[in-house]
Structure formats: structure tokens, C-alpha cells
């Protein structure tokens, strides 16, 4: 099963909020994947086993897996585009 990770400052609140929304989108589209909220301080160790990374911060670091804009899930602005990217990445 594919893994989606969402990272925030402590892996508790913001990341879990976005993770719940991502999970909902996946359920609606009948896509099976693990969605996990993680602590950004330990991101490097989580990213190795991830297939999609949903980011809440803007960093200069690039990762070689599809990276989505998590802010869109929080504000609702540009969310459709991110949803489509998510679906495309996991199909």
C-alpha cells in the first residue's frame, strides 16, 4: 500500500487536520493508501518510505517524490488542483 505523509511542527494538529482531509479525498475516490501525520523535525526519516509528501511549510529542500501544497487543504484556495495531483500521484 502506498504511503502519504503530512508533516507539521509537531505532527499533532495541523498535519493531522490535513491528513484527515486527504484521507477523505482518497476514500471518496476509492483509493487505498496510508495517510500519516508526522513531525517535521524527523521528516528525513519518514520521507524514505513515503510515496507522496504533503507539505505545510515552504522549504528550499527538494524531495524526489510528488510534493503537494498542504496549505490549500487548510484555506480551501486551490484545493481542487491539489486534490487532482493527489489522485494522479496514487493511481
Amino acid at each position, binding site marked *: 500500500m502506498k504511503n502519504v505523509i503530512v508533516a507539521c511542527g509537531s505532527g499533532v494538529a495541523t498535519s493531522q487536520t490535513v491528513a484527515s482531509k486527504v484521507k477523505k479525498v482518497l476514500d471518496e475516490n476509492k483509493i487505498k493508501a496510508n495517510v500519516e501525520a508526522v513531525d*517535521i523535525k524527523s521528516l528525513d526519516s519518514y520521507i524514505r518510505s513515503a510515496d507522496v509528501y504533503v507539505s505545510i511549510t515552504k522549504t528550499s529542500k527538494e524531495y524526489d517524490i510528488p510534493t503537494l501544497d498542504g496549505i490549500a487543504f487548510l484555506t480551501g484556495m486551490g484545493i481542487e488542483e491539489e486534490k487532482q495531483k493527489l489522485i494522479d500521484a496514487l493511481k
Partner: protein
Amino acid sequence: MEVLQNAVQYVLDMGAAVFVPIIMLIIGLVARMKFKDALSAAIIFGVAFSGMTLVVDYMLSSISPAAQTFAENTGINLTSVDGGWTTAAAITWSWPFAFLMFPILVIINIVMLAFKWTKTLNVDVWNVWGKIFTAILVTYLSGSIVAGFIVASIQVIVELKIGDVWGREVEDLTGIPGVTVPHHMTLIAALLYPIDKLMDKVPFLNKKMDAEALRDKLGVFAENHIMGGIIGLLLGLAASYSIQEALILAIQAATALTLFPMVSKLFMQALSPISDAISDFMKKRFKDREILIGLDWPILAGRNEIWVTAIIIVPVLLLFAVTLPGNTVLPFGGIINLSIVVGAVLLTRGNLVRMIIYGVITAPVFLYISTYFSPYITRLAQETGAVNVEEGSMLTWSTIENGEFKLFFANAMNGEWWAILASIGWLAIFTYFVIGRQKDNKRYFSAEAKEVN
């Protein structure tokens, strides 16, 4: 009446892990959630409580004996064990009146937006716990629940006002437009603002440093398991444990710090249907207005300065903890002091040197305020059966966010004259900050725009 009282008492006696899920289930059904979803959210909430109880008990049972041995050997009494903000949040949800804060939050925000008293629409529903936490401390100190909710309402208002200010800084620091961070912990910036104005005059303190290289080197220490392991080992050695015992304590401490956020996110998982409903409701109402959407602080977590500062002030907090007379707090779960670094990164626009200075000078204040509130935090934990705290030790949060505000307003509500004056003073400095900072921002960003052109 008596029947009702007995019924309420019967429910409360089952402890937070049962009665809060029951409240959740009722709220969910009233909000017309599907029964299956409402039940699932309610039970997850109960699981979060029981999980937190397990982890906090585990932490106390491994850390407290070491702290007590340390106290016996040295006379330094650090018996208030720091469970960090995750523990504070968990026991906050166990307060029977906690859920009353949701409607208050929504109403204040809608009214203030409707009258154009703010531009901030705060959809960060998770941090409602911070308001409830204030309401609890004020209620305990003043004996009045009404006073608790009044102060919490003031907190909601000042948070929205600071959200109006931070929009520019957040865009500058993250590149994300239209959002802000109306977080309670950033209010410490208002008190530091006069100092920051003085620092503007010192050339050395105006140089920006690149924090990325430092972050790459030091970042590993901010990881929960490593931080926990180091503190556990240090505590074991300080308590003159044998190497064997100290290493065991190190792993136990690392376990506690690693599990805290893992269990704590269950709260958010349970709250996400309520949180989604509230934020959708609010966003829909103000669709066509130019607003700032208020989010939780982690949108700033990509700033390296935050983590570098937090790590550098860890030893400072520990050193103050053992040297400050009267301090009883043993920093542990809250030792990554987000309560200073997030406000400081916004105030200083990412100036690392100033952030470190603020982290150091505020450290004693954090410890004393935590010492002051630890009996109340312990009382909450015990009253609601969320956590068992043994006789002789206490539970606290070493880096309580915006503790000055809570200290002043709680005592003011208790009729203390010094606190009434201090609260008025706090509001005056806050007003000075809001007005002054918006002027500063205008100047700062127009100068920056000119430089680019």
C-alpha cells in the same frame, strides 16, 4: 434539580475518558453527523485520553523518582514534572466545560468580522484548547467560571488583533499570501516589542544570519527521541544513578517524548469533523471579503531559525531550572520552547541573534510562571481523573504560552490590585504594539519594495 445533579455527577465520576466522548457523541449527532462517524470520533477521543493517561503516567513513574533522588542529593527541588503542551492540551479537554468555548470562539470572530474590527478569520479550531486552558486557570484562581470565560474571550479578541498584524510577516517569512498566525503564543511579541525597538538601534543586532547550515548540524537534537534520550541520561547522572540505571532512564524518557505527539494527534483526529464543520461554516460566510485566514503556527515551521533557537535555549532552560531559587520545574516535555520561538521569529523577521537573546532572557520568566501554575495544572489532572499525580510531585508545562497574560488576568479576576494594574498595563503595551508594528510594517515593506526595484 437534585436528580439532574446526581446524573451529571454520575457521568463525571466515570472520568474524562468516558464523559468527554459522551459529550462529543451528542454534539456530533446534534450537528447531524452520521451516527457511525459521530460514534467513531467520540470513541477516538476516549482512546486519546486513555492513551495520554498511559504515557503521562509512564513519564511520571520514570522521571519523578529520579527528580526526587536528585532533590535528596542536592537540595534542588525540581518536583514539578513538565509534560509539555501535549499533556496540557490533553487535560484541558478533560474539563467538563471545555466544549462551551467553541460557540464563543465562532460568535466573537463572526461579530468582529461583521463590524470590520478584524480582518482575521481564525479557522485554527485545534488551538481552542489554548483558550480553554486559560479559562480553567482563571476559574481555579478566581473561583468563577464566568470570569474564566471572560478572560478567554479577551484572549480570542487579542489573538484576532495580532492576526491582523502578522499577515505581512507571515507572507514575508513563508511566501504564502492571505494567511496569518493568530496564535496565543505569539502574543509574547507584544511585550518584547519595546525591547525590539531598542535593538533596532544596535547595528550588530540588525545583521541577519543564515540559519540553514546550523539547522543541518543541530536539527537532529530537536528530534523527540534524541532530545528525550539526552535529557533522561543527564537526569539519571544528576541523580547519581548508576550508568545502567541512567541508560534505562534515557530510553524511558525518549519513549515518553516520542509517544506524546503520537497519542496527542488522536485528539485532532477525533476533533477533525467538528473542526472541518466550523471552518467551512466560517469560510462560507465571508467568501467575498478580503480576509486573512488564521492558521496554526506550523506554516512557519520551515523557518530554520525556529529550530536553531529552540535547540540553543534547551541547555539555558536546564541551567536556569537548577540555579533559579524557588523554581520547582524540571523541564522535559515542553523543553522545545515554541512559546518563545514562534513569536520571536515573527517579531524579529527571522533575526537569529535576537531570537536567541529573547529565548535566554525569557527563560526564567517561563520557569517561574510554570512553577506558579503547577498546583492548578496538577489539580485539573487529578480532579478529572485524567492523570494520577502522586503525592509529593506535580505536573506542569514548563513553557506555558503567554503565561504573563494568564497570571495577570487570573489574579485580576480574583480582585488583586497589582494584577488589575498589570492587566491594564498589558493591554496598553499590546495596543502600543498593534499600532506601532503596523506602522513599522508599512515602512519596512515599502523600503524593501524600493530595494528590489
